[in-house]
């Protein structure tokens, strides 16, 4: 028995110049906010951008983006709708508000299905909001997607960074490129995370201070792009992604 779907994934992704998996070792570090804001910031810089929510059991980018009534179109596969200037794909189109408990094999199958069916246009960037940790989605994506690069999000907490070490170790072992580490929700002046990141031989992309205005900007891309979070992400994108 042969699963024919994986053969077509390369073709589905071939028009995308850069695929960025926004990942973290643990949850609650602001990964989805950074992934969504990065996609919006790149789109504002006139890049063609897609955003793909792979956090199947806890999707949230649709709320951050304010993607209320968007629906994909069925046309020789699935065409993602344009939401706030971004081609946006999520399992949420099919699950709505229902809880969707998925085990590892189900995550893999849903991931393969979406990768094989979704027909992205020509894109400069596809930003992927990953589930936290080093579970099935991360392993499958590494297995199935060529030219994948990781952007890792942590907080200033040593607890978060310890899980980053495990994620970066896995990626380095598998020779998967790491764009760098972003320190999010920073509330102190210490350079500990920067130093530890550089000690691992990984680029430290920058610090994003804790921004109390972000919560009120959720669902409103104009407000979101005015936050300090967005300003910092624009800097990171300009310095590390756009000119490369």
């Amino acid at each position: 028995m042969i699963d024919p779907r994986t053969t077509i994934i390369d073709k589905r992704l071939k028009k995308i110049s850069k695929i960025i998996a926004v990942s973290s070792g643990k949850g609650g570090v602001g990964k989805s906010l950074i992934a969504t804001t990065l996609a919006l910031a790149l789109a504002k810089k006139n890049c063609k951008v897609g955003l793909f929510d792979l956090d199947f059991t806890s999707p949230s980018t649709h709320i951050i983006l304010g993607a209320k009534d968007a629906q994909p179109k069925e046309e020789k596969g699935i065409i993602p709708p344009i939401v706030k200037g971004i081609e946006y794909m999520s399992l949420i189109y099919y699950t709505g508000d229902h809880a969707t408990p998925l085990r590892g094999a189900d995550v893999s199958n849903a991931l393969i299905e979406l990768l094989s069916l979704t027909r992205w246009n020509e894109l400069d960037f596809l930003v992927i909001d990953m589930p936290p940790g080093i579970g099935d989605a991360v392993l499958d994506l590494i297995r199935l997607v060529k030219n994948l690069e990781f952007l890792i999000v942590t907080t200033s907490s040593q607890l978060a960074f310890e899980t980053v070490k495990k994620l970066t170790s896995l990626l380095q072992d598998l020779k998967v490129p790491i764009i760098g580490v972003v320190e999010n929700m920073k509330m102190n002046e210490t350079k500990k995370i920067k130093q530890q990141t550089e000690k691992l031989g990984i680029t430290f992309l920058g610090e994003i201070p804790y921004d109390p205005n972000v919560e009120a900007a959720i669902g409103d891309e104009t407000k979101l792009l005015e936050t300090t979070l967005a300003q910092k992400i624009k800097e990171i994108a300009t310095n590390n992604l756009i000119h490369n």
Partner: protein
Amino acid sequence: MALFTTKKETWQTKVQPIYKGGIDCFSRASSQSSKLIHHLSRRNAAICLIDAYTVCFFMHEWALAEAVIATTVQIAEKEGLKEVKEVTIKIGELQQIERDILQFALSQLKPANLKNTKFRITQAKTQLKCRACGNTWLFQEHKLDKNTAEAIHFIPEVAHAYIKCPKCNSPDFEITKGRGIWIENIKGLRQT
């Protein structure tokens, strides 16, 4: 993609109010207006107008057919087949793939070196097994509304959002048989 012709009255009352499209299609039309209405009722499919009463659907079976063709070509090359005689495809009931549309898409997509290849499509019933209580049951026992059936059609795993074990109400079940699409076997002649 699939083509359907319909009677003038059906077109005016049921098709035209829903879709307006440009012309972007090829191949011949078949006369199956009942199937057309069936698809209209369950799919938000892209559609193109061929002539006055003929429409063309670009459905997601097309993407699955593309995957089957690409895999067949890859395996034929790997195995050194000079000719592929027959490909047996199994489709799981859970994904509700339209067999005629898949067959049509395969016939349209197959490259010259698969010109004489026969694609045999068989359907497998979907069996589910509860991980909590061990109960096994068939997917066909569920009466799903149109939107739910549509969602599962695209991504079968979203069944976990809508279906629960009829015995213990747990959503933690395994799809033991009949999920999606598989190539069961490929018959061909090896190069000598």
